[in-house]
Each structure stands twice: as structure tokens, then as C-alpha cells.
């Protein structure tokens, strides 16, 4: 059916600010005030005269697509980069020009990057209190003092982690706690958290947000950087949006929806149509029955038909990628069955899965989807070498080059030369090469795991055009995504997973996007 009228027809002004006034007291002085911040890298403007304020003790979300300038502004604030001349940087009303990392730390500015930067072989206590070991003059180590400092911080955060365990033995959520504790050990006043909820389960995310609220109550300002909007809308009071290196505005999160926020971040509106293909007569390509894997997913059952795009959404830790990896043969389920075209599928490795006709586009394009230093051509043919052999069992150059050219053309990938490293391509074009690689295997089922992460807004439409075309040609597609609008407008049906189970199924035509949003983030 048609799409609900209200939110979807909102149009935001193209370009700059329509800054809503914040709901905070106008006379409270900002902790950090940045104005006219620009940064140029090799002739390209990464930031254009942006504004950025943080109030003391608030939880602020910094939202924006990849490439919008989020990490640049953080690096400027933490002293790694210097802004272009003309910048105004004030902390507590005083100018803080010429920052370097050490000085920024002295001012109480801490950044927790996504890779956490911990020392796995050392204990929790030692990681947290490591700054006691710094300084050019060698001193005696006091393990007791380190433990005491660590204990105090953890107590303040209201969490408990065994101080003597090595960080290597901790779960990712626990490591995050250690990273936060370390950031706090030196009287932090402003803490940046870069994508902190990646790799956390729902329960762990809640525990993390509890810590964040505590910090805020203690007067420490926290800036959440994320493109996963749901959790941050929960815990942040305001959200600052950057787009293409420009400041869009700062808005209260009260009343803000994911959809509206996405529109602000991307500058595009969602006036798409939902899919209305009738697939009731289409044969079932994939049937999953009672699939379970200990601690990952439980009793998962669903069907995907020819030409159908089945969306799978949910919060982090829902188990979606785990199910996908089992379908792809990377892991083995403990129970249940998988039927492909009606025949039972038993795969021991991903190679078997690929041969059977299942392809998996990983959400980690940089590390798992492509071999970045190698050529575009080599990346394209990596999954189909067996099909390119000549009579002597060697790779036939003609077949190889023909295949590469064919797919580059079909998917309209903008490249220099096939011998160029794939790392020279933009995110969107890289993703097209990933698709080319998998489509070359002629799959029956294509699993897409967060396929547009790190892809520019402009490029996303192109990628989904490809996906829709594939579906119309009969491919069965599983679309895993956190972004509900993305799933809503591109799926025939949507599964909602939570804590390893499927909890509900929706048909986009009969449910509103807001309803799904509410259910997922309840």
C-alpha cells in the first residue's frame, strides 16, 4: 500500500542550518565552544567553518555519515590536528589554541576510539591506571597504587571487573568499560566515544548507557559519535549533525525520530515507495527451520522466495550476523536445518556454501570484504577462480579480463584501471566490486550484511538499484541492516530479531516505519 503521510513528506532545507534552539537554559555557558573550524587536506575541505558546542555534563550526539567530518573535528579537539587559521576554540570561556594531545589530555579531553587501544596482555588494573607509568623519567612501579586508582574509578562508574584479569580474556563490552575507566582516571571533563555500541549486545549496551548517564550526572560531558541512531537518541539530550564537512544544526532529541535524523544527515528525504511485488507464487529458495546455535541464536525459522528481499533488523546483539555466518558456512549450527531449493544443505566451510549458491557480503568491507592493497581485478575474481581455468588448469588471462570488464560495466563501477589497488576506490565503488565478486559466483541467495555502511548517500541509491534489479531477475536476497528506513523501503518483508530470536514479522505496506522503530527500540 502507500506510505503513511506524516513524517515521510518532510523536506528539510538543503544545505545549512535550521538550528532549533536547544531546550537548555540559554544562560548556561558552554564547556567547549568551537566556531569557524575548517580543515583542508591536500586541497580538499574536510571541514568548512563548522560550529561545535558542548555543554557541561551533557550527553551530546555527533551524528553524520562517513566522510562528514566527525573524526576530523574530534582529532582537532584532541590536539591531533590543527585547524585552519581563523578558528575560535574556547574551553570554559578561555582560548585553547595550539593544542597537542598531551595538552588536550591535561585539559580533561579524552577520546575513546573504536579500536579501544588497550593492552591485551596486561591486567585490567594496569590498563586503567597505565598513565601512572608514563613520563620520561623512569620511576618505580607501584602495582598497589595502580590497583587502587583502578578500583576507585570502577566504583565510581558503578561496575565491577576483576582487576587481575588480563584484558585479553575479557569480552568486548568489558573491554569498553576498561577503556572508559582509563579515560576517566585523569579527571576527564569531556569524553568522546567513537561508535561505542558496535559489537555489544542489547544488555551490554544498556549497561554502557547507564555508565554514560552516571558520567553525565557527575558533570562530565560525553559526546557520542555514531551513525547508529537508536541508542543515542535514547541517551543524548541534543544531537549535532554534520554533513559533507558542514554544520547542519543542533537539535533536541526530544521528539526527534530516526527518519528525521537520517534526513538531516543525508540531506535527502524519504519519499520512496514500499515494494509491492506479489511473491505468493514464487518458489521458496531458502528455508530455515529451527536453527539454533548456543549463545548466538535460537529456534530461527524463515523462508525466502525467488525474487524476494527479506529484511532483517534489530538491535545490536540480536544475532543477525551470526545467523548469516551459519548460512554461509563459517559456523555450524547446533540444531535445525537449512534447505536450499528444497534440498537439505550441509556445509562445512564457506567454500561449500559458495558452491551451493550462497553469497555473503560482509559488513566489514575494509577488513573482510576486500583485500585492500590488491588490485580491483584480483578482488573481483577472487571467488570464481575455478571457473576461469583453461585446459591446463591455469587461470586463462582472457577469461579473467573478460569477466572483470563485464562486471565493471554491468555494475557501472568507476575505476581507473583494473590493476589499480581496490583501496583507491570510493566506498560506494568498493562495494560495487564486492557485489561483482559475489554476483560472479551466480548465487541463488545473496546475503547483504549492512551493505551501505561507509557508503556515501549518493552512492547508496545506486547500490539499491542494483539490488532491486537482482531481485526482479529472481535472486533471493537477505538484507540485514540496522537502519530501519533502509530496510523498510527495500524489503518485501521484514523480520525483527532480538536476543537471538525472531520476535516479529512485518510487511512494509501494512505497518508504518515508526511502528517498527518503536518495536525495535522498545
Amino acid at each position: 500500500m502507500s506510505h503513511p503521510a506524516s513524517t515521510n513528506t518532510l523536506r528539510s532545507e538543503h544545505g545549512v542550518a535550521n538550528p532549533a534552539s536547544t531546550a537548555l537554559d540559554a544562560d548556561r555557558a558552554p564547556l567547549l565552544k568551537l566556531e569557524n573550524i575548517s580543515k583542508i587536506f591536500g586541497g580538499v575541505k574536510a571541514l568548512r567553518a563548522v560550529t561545535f558546542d558542548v555543554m557541561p555534563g551533557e550527553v551530546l550526539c555527533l551524528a553524520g555519515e562517513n566522510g562528514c567530518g566527525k573524526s576530523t573535528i574530534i582529532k582537532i579537539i584532541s590536539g591531533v590536528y590543527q585547524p585552519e587559521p581563523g578558528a575560535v576554540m574556547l574551553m570554559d570561556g578561555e582560548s585553547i589554541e595550539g593544542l597537542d594531545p598531551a595538552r588536550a589530555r591535561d585539559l580533561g579531553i579524552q577520546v575513546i576510539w573504536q579500536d579501544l587501544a588497550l593492552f591485551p596482555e596486561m591486567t585490567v588494573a594496569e590498563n586503567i591506571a597505565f598513565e601512572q607509568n608514563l613520563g620520561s623519567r623512569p620511576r618505580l612501579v607501584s602495582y598497589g597504587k595502580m590497583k587502587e586508582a583502578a578500583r576507585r574509578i570502577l566504583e565510581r562508574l558503578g561496575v565491577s571487573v576483576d582487576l587481575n584479569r588480563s584484558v585479553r580474556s575479557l569480552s568486548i563490552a568489558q573491554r569498553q568499560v576498561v577503556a572508559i575507566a582509563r579515560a576517566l582516571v585523569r579527571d576527564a571533563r569531556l569524553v568522546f566515544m567513537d561508535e561505542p555500541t558496535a559489537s555489544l549486545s542489547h544488555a551490554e549496551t544498556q549497561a554502557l548507557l547507564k555508565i554514560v548517564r552516571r558520567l553525565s550526572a557527575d558533570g562530565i560531558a560525553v559526546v557520542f559519535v555514531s551513525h547508529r541512531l537508536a541508542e543515542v537518541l535514547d541517551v543524548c539530550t541534543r544531537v549535532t549533525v554534520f554533513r559533507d564537512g558542514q554544520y547542519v544544526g543542533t537539535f533536541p532529541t526530544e521528539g526527534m525520530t530516526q527518519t528525521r535524523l537520517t534526513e538531516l544527515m543525508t540531506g535527502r528525504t524519504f519519499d520512496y515507495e514500499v515494494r509491492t511485488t506479489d511473491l505468493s507464487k514464487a518458489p521458496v529458495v531458502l528455508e530455515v527451520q529451527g536453527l539454533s546455535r548456543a549463545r548466538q541464536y535460537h529456534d530461527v525459522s524463515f523462508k525466502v522466495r525467488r525474487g524476494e528481499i527479506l529484511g532483517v533488523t534489530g538491535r545490536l546483539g540480536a544475532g543477525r550476523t551470526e545467523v548469516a555466518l551459519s548460512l554461509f558456512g563459517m559456523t555450524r549450527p547446533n540444531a535445525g536445518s537449512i534447505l536450499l531449493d528444497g534440498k537439505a544443505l550441509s556445509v562445512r566451510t564457506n567454500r561449500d556454501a559458495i558452491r551451493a549458491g550462497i553469497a555473503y557480503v560482509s559488513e566489514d568491507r575494509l577488513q573482510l570484504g576486500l583485500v585492500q592493497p590488491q588490485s580491483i581485478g584480483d578482488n573481483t575474481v577472487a571467488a570464481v577462480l575455478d571457473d576461469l581455468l583453461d585446459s591446463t588448469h591455469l587461470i586463462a588471462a582472457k577469461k579473467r579480463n573478460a569477466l572483470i570488464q563485464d562486471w565493471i560495466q554491468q555494475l557501472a563501477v568507476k575505476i581507473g584501471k583494473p590493476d589499480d589497488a581496490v583501496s583507491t576506490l570510493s566506498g560506494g565503488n568498493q562495494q560495487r566490486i564486492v557485489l561483482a565478486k559475489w554476483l560472479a559466483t551466480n548465487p541463488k541467495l545473496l546475503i547483504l550484511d549492512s551493505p551501505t555502511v561507509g557508503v556515501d548517500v549518493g552512492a547508496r541509491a545506486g547500490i539499491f538499484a542494483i539490488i532491486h534489479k537482482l531481485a526482479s531477475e529472481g535472486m533471493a536476497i537477505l538484507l540485514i541492516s540496522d537502519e530501519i528506513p533502509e530496510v523498510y523501503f527495500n524489503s518485501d518483508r521484514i523480520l525483527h530479531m532480538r536476543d537471538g530470536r525472531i520476535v516479529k514479522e512485518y510487511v512494509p505496506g501494512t505497518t508504518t516505519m515508526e511502528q517498527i522503530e518503536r518495536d525495535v527500540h522498545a
Partner: protein
Amino acid sequence: MNTSTSHRSFAPHVPADVAGLLGFLALVIAVLSFASDRFFSESTFVSVAFQLPELGFFTLAMLMPLISGGFNLSVTFTANISGLAMAWVLRTYGGADAGAIAIILGIAAALATGAAAGWVMGAVIARTGASPILVSLSMMIFLRGLGEFLTRGGDISGFPPFVREMGNGVFLGVPIPLLIFLGCALLWHVVMTRSRLGFATRMIGSNLEATRYSGIQTTRAVTRIYMLSGLMCGVAGVVMAAQFNSVRVGHGEAFLLISVLACFLGRVDPFGGFGRVVPVVIALVILQVIASGLNLLGANQHLATALWGVFLLAVMLFRWAWANGMSKTLVRKRAAATEGVTQ
């Protein structure tokens, strides 16, 4: 990355790095000819032609592990053990009077021994993820010990005439070891450029996990890479035994450094993922010419050893300076293109 433009002309297009190396070779020959008037002569040429293969086999053995992001410290001792295997077979079947069948069996035994040692290393590296340096180091210690145990530290000598001919003879004007080497180099070239294993080697050298996700059997590939490395050591062992009519554990130790040097001089990336046979072969020629030249100039063997070390450092320093200059340009371009991607 090479930018080889294809012209519709009769001249074959020569990649930049090959051209650079050929130029360097010309320079080296010029300098040595200047330093000694006996250099540019037939006997030098012959000496290079006979001595190059030994170094060449070890370099080929080192090549694939390096490209895959690993290392093989045990190349010389694997060669020794393989030579011993051949010697043992021949000894059992008549020693210096052994017949053709025995010789063939002996060679087969040598190749099998080398391949087996390589296979064990590859399997351990592939399945346990242990550092290739450590694994090949322990294999090296083991093989050295095994070899010394079997030979009581002495030589095994006395090979049949045919074997000696293989090591010192000439066929159609070309020394037989050189023919064998060229054949092996050609085989390696084909494997690296046209086979699935060669493809896998490069991809694995750059990113093992992503390669695995693409459906390539990385465990099998790594095992085979080291097995081939061991096989080439076996060839080295056979040819060394043939050339010197004896096998001694520890023979060829100096070649470890020089084979690594040849690979890096031949533009193999120390971090893995990139490397071609052709530039490495040219690098081999350069190094052998230098070695022969030093020999001719009467340079002390130990001085030569020290100079090899200096040369390796010089090559790595040069690469660093080059990469530094290049990367400054690249950094500017890349920063513009990818700035903002949260790392």
C-alpha cells in the same frame, strides 16, 4: 604499482622496476669492469653461469613464503637434508657405481624430503597461526641437528659420474645447473602469475581473513606454499651435491641472507602480498655478478659477508627513502579521498 602502458609497437613494454634493475646491472658490470680488467671475460661469465643456480634455488625457495607474508629460515638446512637423502639412497644402491634407477630414486628421495619438511612447517603455520619465523627457526634447528647427527659432522661424498656431470656439465653450451634453474624459475613464474596457488599467495600475503571469506582454502594454500618452498630446497640440495660431489651439513649457510637480499632487491614487498619472479631473477644476476666480481678482486670471504650485510641495509634504506617520497604524494591524494572515515 606498475603502470605498464600498452603500445601497439614491436618493442615489448618493460615495467619500470625491471628497467631499473637492468640499469643497475649494467652499472654494476661497468664498475667491476673498471675495477679489474680481468672481469669482463668469458671465464667470469662461465663462473657466474655455474654459481648463479645455487643462489637462485634458495631465492626461489624464499620467494613464495615471503610473498605470503611469512618467512623460511630453514632453506639451507632443508637443502642439506635433502642432499643427504639422495646420498643415502645412492649409498644403498652402490654408491659411486649406482645405476640410473638408483639416481632417479635418489633425486626423488631428495625432493620428497624437502617437500615433507616444507609441508610440516606449512601445516603448523596454517593451522596454529604461529609465527613463520619461529616455526621455520625450529625446523632449521631440528634439521641441522638431524643432519649433524646423521653425518657426525662430516662430509658424505662420492657420487656417480652422471650426478657429477649434472652438476658440472654443459648442455648445448649452457651449464646444466643453470638450465635446471631456468626451468624452475619459469615454473615459479607460471605458478605465481597463472595458477590459483599464486593468486592465493598474494592475497594471503595482504589479508588472510578476507581471502578466506572469498572462499579460497587458505589453510591448504599456506601448507602448499611451504611445501613448494621445501621442494625447491630439495632441488638445491641435489644440485649442490652434484656440483661439489659432496654433502655437508651447513653448506650454503651464507645463502640465507643473500636469498632474502635478492628478493628485496627484486622488489618483493617485505610485508607480503607483492612480488614477481622476473625482477627477482635479475636481482639474482646482479648479486651473483657482484659476488663473482668480489671473488675476482681477491676480496676476503669474510669481507664479502660483511659487504652483503651492508648491501642488504642499503637496499632497504633505499626502498624506505623511495617509499617515503612516494607516500608523501599518495598521502595527499588519499587524505583528500578518504578523510572522515572513522578509523
